[in-house]
């Protein structure tokens, strides 16, 4: 539980900030000028902060809506992402956030309206194009929903733009917010998945894969559209058997027609991120298969990547229409 909250002076009296603060009655609240005074300073240590993360409430000043990386998407022409929060409740060993930041404190930008008006502007500017807005890349939005009410605010917002897709990427099995709203045809609840045995080692503090599948089934039966995200694909000694079992388990529970899209992604890091990860997890066998390529990116050997992609695609085709398949990155 959070025992320290830092709040920017500028937003301390806003309704959203007060709403969040009220959920932590025993936390010590400290006022700050700007979140940069404490977030991601040099000489901070992500792993130590992760043992007792503080919550930082701040106002996002710019960069509300960003272009998704090239090659990333689920079929639309224009892809954007936005982050109302940095860092995550979970502690996944391969998470790029611990390579990107020195700080594990939860940073929440409370000016949701500013995000919405920027998204509106983007939609109006490109109204002739199909577009997707992604959330859940710098945090797990659904996992933090009891604190932020982010999805509760954004599902009604995106219900006004039926042609625009809104993807919520998550590992959380919190389904309260999806029970309080009618299913939205342009909203995809996209689950990050990997074989159960790997998740037990790597997805620390996150719900088990069987719990995620159970929740996907529940949401699908309620009418929500489901995304399957095998991103990153993790290499290990018996990966073929493990992934085959995972796919079978998923499609045993969820009807194909409830699946909006399936995407596959490779494990990749910039060199500096990877070096930090290796320091944090020196005994990780999963990280021992990664290599630096000639562009300074750390990934599996190209032959491993190709083999994994081809195998998983062909296995998935036993259950789902290949037109629903996409690559992440």
């Amino acid at each position, binding site marked *: 539980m959070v025992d*320290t909250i*830092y709040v920017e002076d500028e937003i301390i009296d806003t309704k959203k900030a007060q709403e969040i603060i009220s959920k932590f009655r025993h936390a010590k609240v*400290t006022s700050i000028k700007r979140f940069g005074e404490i977030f991601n300073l040099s*000489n901070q*240590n992500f792993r130590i902060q992760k043992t*007792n993360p503080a919550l930082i409430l701040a106002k996002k000043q710019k960069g509300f809506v960003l272009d998704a990386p090239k090659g990333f998407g689920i079929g639309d022409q224009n892809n954007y992402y936005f982050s109302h929060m940095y860092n995550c409740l979970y502690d996944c060993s391969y998470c790029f956030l611990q390579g990107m930041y020195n700080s594990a404190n939860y940073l929440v930008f409370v000016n949701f309206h500013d995000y919405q008006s920027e998204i509106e502007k983007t939609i109006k500017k490109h109204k002739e194009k199909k577009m997707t807005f992604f959330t859940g890349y710098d945090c797990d939005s659904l996992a933090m929903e009891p604190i932020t009410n982010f999805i509760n605010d954004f599902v009604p917002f995106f219900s006004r733009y039926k042609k625009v897709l809104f993807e919520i990427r998550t590992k959380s099995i919190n389904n309260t917010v999806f029970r309080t709203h009618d299913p939205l045809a342009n909203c995809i609840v996209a689950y990050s998945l990997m074989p159960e045995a790997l998740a037990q080692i790597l997805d620390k503090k996150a719900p088990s894969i069987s719990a995620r599948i159970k929740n996907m089934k529940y949401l699908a039966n309620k009418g929500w559209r489901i995304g399957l995200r095998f991103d990153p694909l993790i290499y290990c000694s018996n990966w073929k058997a493990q992934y085959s079992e995972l796919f079978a388990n998923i499609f045993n529970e969820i009807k194909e027609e409830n699946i909006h899209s399936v995407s596959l992604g490779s494990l990749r890091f910039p060199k500096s991120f990877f*070096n930090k990860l290796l320091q944090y997890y020196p005994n990780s*066998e999963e990280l021992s298969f990664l290599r630096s390529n000639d562009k300074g990116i750390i990934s599996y050997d190209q032959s491993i990547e190709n083999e994994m992609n081809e195998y998983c695609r062909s296995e998935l085709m036993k259950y789902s229409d290949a037109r629903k398949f996409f690559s992440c990155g």
Partner: protein
Amino acid sequence: MIEKNLEGVSVRWVIALKGEAEEIIKNYAMKRVATTPFPVYKNKDFDMWLILSGIGQLNAVAATTYLYVKSDASYNTIWINFGIVGSRNFKVGELIQIDKITSSDFQDNYYPSPSAFKNNNIERCNLITVNKPEKLFENDGVYDMEAYGFFSFAKKIAPHELISVLKIISDIPGTDLSEIDKHSVEILVSKQIQLIEKVLKNLLSSQKIIFLQLKDPKYFDEICLQKKFTFSQKVTLRKYLTQWQARFPQRNPLEEIGQRMTASQILKKFSDNLMR
């Protein structure tokens, strides 16, 4: 107490006056090892040092810098500023952990990391560093004359998570400052020594995390002694040996190295094995 010869333990105390430091010196069995320009104390069994900085921010910065150099403190060192303070919000004798440091002279604020506060139930509050003893206590929080200077330097040489500012309330509005003598301060500190140890215990567990992160992988030193590696080759070697340990815990990498192999050939050999 700290166990003797605990691997990776490294602690530095920066304290203004002897009266404030006396109980810490006794508790951790430190002996004086220098007198000028600042009195310095040291434990003989493990890497713990203490410096008496004197009063004021300038002295605090100078003493912290001096101790950093004199004691050859590594990056993974715990730095604690400890001393007495005044406040209108607390009772005399209470131990306080500082979570925000401001200065009457400077705009920037500092925020000691909450990882040091975990589960110890010690009061927390903000601190204002001033240049003259405070009598009016117009603002909430505690007043001292060193912490801002101390923190401004300590944050450059150590991880934020290993820096702590701990204070004991010695005066409140109406206190006759002339009555605060060495003996009364020693009594205040002795009553809180157990809580001070609790804070140090939290810091030590954070230090252990960093120690393991910075530790070279097994066989790194032996291999570097055998062949001449450039700086960047050492970085690669460190990475390969870490991956080697995780992948082949039963295989000794030294056995892969032939007598005539160059540094680059050794790296290639490790890389090829790890590719499989």
